[in-house]
Every structure is written in structure tokens, then in C-alpha cells.
């Protein structure tokens, strides 16, 4: 009986500890959506710098956050605070994202090409696996937001991390930090 109670408590604790935005699968499908949308499916069409996806994840997950980041109008104080929060969350997401990238590479879903002195580059190698994941309508909202992002940020695929941070955050008055 006590074992059941303890198990129930543990289950409740794990439910409470769950944060959808920090789950590894959230980063998995976000990464694949970005690479798929940008047609990064071969070595000639690589996505430059995986770290950029850490800054795109929240924008793909929320229409409101994407609107704030892409607006040309000056942001009010609340908008700036929200954007600063997204930046901080993205910065802390970079390390888990690297591990997710490695996990995807080990599974053969993506391939990384690392050159000394340059950001690592990657592309989808398991098109079937990716397609089987993304073919559902569950990801329609994310795909629509990715299109908007792609149209707003030209050269997103090859853009450097610094340029991305400037376009999405610094240009709206958010102090950017880290590499």
C-alpha cells in the first residue's frame, strides 16, 4: 500500500516537473521542421550552425512570440521584456540542443559536417524518418510559422548566429549576450 502511495506521489511529482518547452522531443521536432522547411537534405544544402535553432524554437511554438520578434514597429516595455525572456531561455537551451543534435546524428536522421574555425553544418539524411514524423497535421501551425520566419529572415539557412540574434533581438532593444 505504502509502495503504491509512494509511486503515486512520484508520478504526480514527475507530472508537475514536466515542462513542455524543455522536453528533448520539443527540440527534436523543432530541429527537423526547420531543416525540412529550408530543404536542408543534402551536403550541398546544409544548415549552418545548429545553435540558431535554440533561438527559433519558442518563436515556432507561439504565434504571439513570433509576431513580437518579427514586427517592424518599436516594441513597448512589455514586448521588450517578453523578447528578453525568450532570449534568456534560448541561451540556456543551446547545450541540450547540441546533445539532441548528437542523438539525431547517432540515429542517422541528420549528418553534421564540422570544419575547424567554422560553425558546424548539418542536413537531413533520413528523409523517410523525418517525413513520417512531420506528415501529421499536428505540426501545421509550426510549419506556417516557419514559413513566415523564412520570408522575414532571408538567408536564414546560411545566416550567422550573430546576425540572427541581431535581427530577432538586438534590433528590438534586447541586450544580447554570449556567442
Amino acid at each position, binding site marked *: 500500500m505504502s509502495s503504491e502511495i509512494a509511486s503515486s506521489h512520484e508520478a504526480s511529482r514527475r507530472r508537475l516537473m514536466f515542462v513542455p518547452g524543455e522536453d528533448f522531443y520539443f527540440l*527534436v521536432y523543432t530541429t527537423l521542421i526547420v531543416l525540412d522547411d529550408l530543404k536542408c537534405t543534402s551536403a550541398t544544402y546544409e544548415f549552418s550552425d545548429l545553435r540558431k535553432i535554440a533561438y527559433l524554437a519558442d518563436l515556432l511554438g507561439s504565434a504571439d512570440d513570433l509576431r513580437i520578434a518579427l514586427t517592424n514597429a518599436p516594441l513597448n516595455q512589455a514586448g521588450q521584456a517578453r523578447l528578453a525572456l525568450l532570449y534568456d531561455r534560448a541561451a540556456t537551451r543551446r547545450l541540450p540542443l547540441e546533445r539532441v543534435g548528437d542523438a539525431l546524428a547517432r540515429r542517422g536522421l541528420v549528418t553534421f559536417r564540422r570544419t575547424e574555425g567554422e560553425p558546424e553544418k548539418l542536413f537531413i539524411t533520413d528523409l523517410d524518418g523525418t517525413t513520417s514524423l512531420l506528415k501529421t497535421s499536428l505540426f501545421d501551425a509550426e510549419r506556417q510559422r516557419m514559413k513566415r520566419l523564412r520570408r522575414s529572415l532571408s538567408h536564414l539557412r546560411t545566416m550567422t548566429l550573430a546576425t540572427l540574434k541581431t535581427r530577432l533581438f538586438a534590433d528590438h532593444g534586447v541586450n544580447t549576450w554570449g556567442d
Partner: protein
Amino acid sequence: MGRLAIRKVEYSGEKYEFASPELPDGLVVVEGDNRTGKSTFADLIFFGLGGPVKQFAKKGKEQHKEITSDVKNAVHVTVDLNGERFRVTRRFDAPQDILIAAHGDLSEVEVLPVHRHEGRRVFSDWLLEKLGIRSVTLFVGSYNGKLNLTDLMRLMYHDQDPDPARVFMRPDRESFVADSLDFRRAIFEILIGTTSEKFYESLGKLRMAERTHAERQATLDVYKNAVGQLTPHADTNAVFLEKQIKDHEAQLERLAASRRQARKTNPTAPSPESDLMNMRRDLAAHEVKLGALERVRSDLVTERVRLISLEGQLIDEVLRIQKIIHAHETLALFSPDTCPCCLRPVARAQAACICGQPVEEDAYQRFFYSSDEYLSILKSKQKNVQTVREARAGCELELAGLEKRVVGVQAASDEVRKRMERWGGSHGTYGTLLEQIDDKIVDVRVELERLKQQLDLEFARNKLEQALAAAREELERLRIETQKLELDAQADRVAKIARFNAIYTELMADTLEDVRTVRLDADYEPILNGGEYREASSRVPRRLMYFLTLLSLSLESDIPFPRFLLIDTPETAGIDRENLSRAIGKIAAVLEKGTGQVILTTGPDRYPNQMQSKRFVTLTQKEKLLRPQRTRAMT
């Protein structure tokens, strides 16, 4: 009457000194060349008796250098006052006081101030008392003051006036008061004794009464002017105002009775005022209720917005969990045995940690969720979404109910407003009649208040009128009293002035060959030959003989003039030496009438030879009046 005689004049200082010999009655000649100290001798006497001498002051352009540069200096004048001898001392460095010492009795020493201040007894009062002359208070304009010895000295001290056309010596301060006609007349009349203290007291009161009357008249005029501007019918007197007030009060009572009657006619009908008050009260209650409902509605709207936002967030999470579950089921990238550090699969034994240490399977801390756990989380989140939806529905239900209540209260409030608007247009004949009565009552009350204020103003005006009438009566009474006293003195004065004129004419006729008649005008100024004689050379004899006439009059009759003259070198205004000598010669002739003293300072050979024996002080360029201390010489 009293008599003044100077017995000795002394000056003492650290640098200079002087001491006259004993000066007898009769003529005392002080002879000296120009700038040897003749005038200083006369000025020392005048200064010693409390007179102001400009040259002795340490300020001014015409300073007497020897005296103003000397230190610890004083003048000592020994005087006989009605046979009593005193020695008076006045210091130059403290001229505000005079020390009086009775001759031969050092215990009788008194210090008196020279200048009058706040009614204090001054040196002049003491001296006039000794001479039996009563000091009188005079009123000139707003000024009032007692006559002093220095005022009387204006007809006893014949100084070197550069304009001897003036008989009276110049006052110490040129002012319309000190040199006013009233002052000069008073000096003359006091000295010849034709007036009384009562007359001047009465005259003073008369002047005060004139001033009071003028002030009260001015106050009344100002008041009338101010009241005339404030009230349109200021001419109505108190009697008529009181009658008007009574009429209005009676009208007010009649109106009050009419109002009571109107109320009795329809006692059940609510008054329009109470209707209006009730409606206002209702309206206020509705407005308060509406305000409270608005606050609740605002809170509910805020709550609904928060719930909608929360629902949206929860739905997003549910969707994301669904996507995560889909990804997990499609890719199965992670399991409870995945390394939390490198995300590689680890071959973990049952009931052991990934490092190999034994641990209960239930107690093993998993870093990844299983499909079941994801589903459990999804259900939990979906349940949360349902809970929030129910809360939102409850909130919206409550909001809808509230909206209905707001509409109801708003309608009730609008209804009250409409009723008030209708009430404002017409509310029956009863209300109109009562309103008319009330309006009339207000009008009558306003008019009544105005009349009462006007009556108060009228009472105040009456008081001013009464005060003015009292001042006018007092003025008339004093005028009559003063006139009576004046008339009483007039007979005596006429006789004395006739005698004065006779003596004066005789002295002048003996001095100037073409003078036949001399008389005094109403202001006691001399008129020679009926005013036709205006030779400048006559001015010195005219003034000198005036003084001598007073002396002569005092020697032959009992008048207050103290039988003393101080004459300082009358050589101005172009008088020739012969006429001057003749005029001076009259002094001795006058003194033959009785005992008096005339101190004359003059130059050598300016007076008749037979008067040489009367020379008691001789001053030369070598033997000047003030001599350095070391010489200690005495004439």
C-alpha cells in the same frame, strides 16, 4: 512784580577763562572794539539763562572757535531774581541741563533740563516762577506748548539782528509756530501783564475745540459720502426707516399666515420640495448601486480575460504534449535508460542505476518520460483545460447576470431622471402658489435686511451728528468765554498800550527828528507817523526804543516785564553815529525812573561821554573777553 538782574558773568574752561566784575543795577556798559568779544559777552548771558546760541554749538558754519575748541568749559551767571541771588551754571559739553545754586548756600542745588519733554519742569519754569511770571500754554495749529523764558527774551535781548525791522528777536528756530502772531502777541501781553492765565487756557481750549469740530465735521462728511455711495436712499431718516421696517415685518407675518393657510388647504399632498428631494435621493441610491455593479463587472471581465489566457496557454501545452508524444512514438529516441548527459542509450540492469549500483526499480530516478507518463501528463493537462473552461463559463454566467442587473438599475435611474425633468416643467397649481408665497417671503426678507442695515448706518450717522453738535456747542461756549476774558483784559490793555504809545512816541521823537507819532497796531508792531515813515535808518531806534519803552513801562508801573534789558551793539541798518549815541543816551534817561538793569555792549565812542562811568568791562584787541588760562587777568 519780579525783577531780573545779572550780577556776574564768568566763563571757565581748560584753555580760556573770563570773570566779570560785580555788575550793579542801572546801566552796565561793556565797551570793546570789533571782534574783541562784546557779542560773546551778551551771548554768554543768554546762553547761561537757557537760550540757544548757534555759535556755541559744535556743529554749524559759524562756530565760536575759542569756545567750541575749549574743553570742560561752562558759563556761570550770577543773577538776582526778586532779590534772591543764584548762580546758574551751564556746561558747553552738556548744554541740555542747567545747574542752579542758591548764593551762599551750597545745599540748595538743583539741576533742571533746558528743553521741555513730556511735561517735565524745566529751567525756564523755575526762573519764571521766581520772577512771578506765569507760563502759559499756547495752541497754534496742531502744536501746543508753554512759553519759555527764551520766548520772553525776544523782547528783552536786543541782539545784533541783521534786519532790525523786526522788533521781536528771531526765535531759536524759524518756524511758523515760534514766530506766529499768536506767539508774539502772547509774549507782549504777558510782559505788559494785560492778559491772564485763564485767557490763554480758554484760548487753548478754544483752539482744541476748533480742531475737534473740524475733525468731526470732516468725519461726518466722509461718512455721508460713503453711505451715499453704498445705499441709494440714504436720505431717509431713522423715524421713516423704522416705520418701513415695521411695515415689512407685518407683511412678512401676513405672508407666513398665507403660507400656513395654503398648506392647510391641501395637507395630504406632498410638497413639491419633498418630491424633488425623494427623487434626488432615489437617483443617488441608483447611482451608488450602479457604481458598485460596475466595479464588480470590471473585476469579472478581468477574471474572464485571465481565464481565457490561461485556457489558451493550457491548450498550447496540450498540443505540444501531443506533438511530443507523436515524436516519441515515431522516433523513440529516448527511454528511461538513456544517459541524461550524452543522451546515449545505456544498458541498465533491472533494479540498478546506470552506473551499476543496485537500487530499487521504483526508486530509480528516470530522466525521461515514458509513453504512459506522457499520456498521464496529457490527460492531466486536458483536465486542467476543462476546469478552466468551466471556470470561464461560470464567470460568463455571472457576468451575464450582472449585466441584467446593471440594465435594470440603469433603467430605474433613467426613470427617476425623466421624472425629475417632468417635475421641472410643471407640478400643479398648489406648488406654484406656495412657490409664489415663498418667493415673496424671500423678497421681503431681503428688503427688510437692507432696511435694518440702513437703520444701523443711520444710527451711526446720528451719533456723528450728535458728536458734531456737541463740539459746535463747546466751540461756541469757549468762543464766548474767551471773548469775555479778552474783553475783561481789554480795558486794562487799552490803558497800558496808550501809555506804551505815549512813552514810545516820546522816546522816538527825542531820537529821530522827523518822528511825530508812534503807535502799536493790533499785532503790537510799531507804526511810525501813521505808517508813512519808512526810513531804513529808523529801524535801529525803532526797535531799541520799543525795548526801552517796555523797560520804562515796567519802571513806572507794576507789570511782569522784569526790568532788565540786554542790548548788544545796535550798529546795523545804516544808523549814523549821532542818532545812535542819542538813542543810547535814552537808556540812562529811562533808568532814572526806577531801579532796573540794562547791559549794553558797544564800541568805543558810540555812546555819550557822560555814560563813561557806567563802563564796567573794557575789551581791546590785546585784552579780549576770553583770555588764556595762564594770564588770569581780570578787568
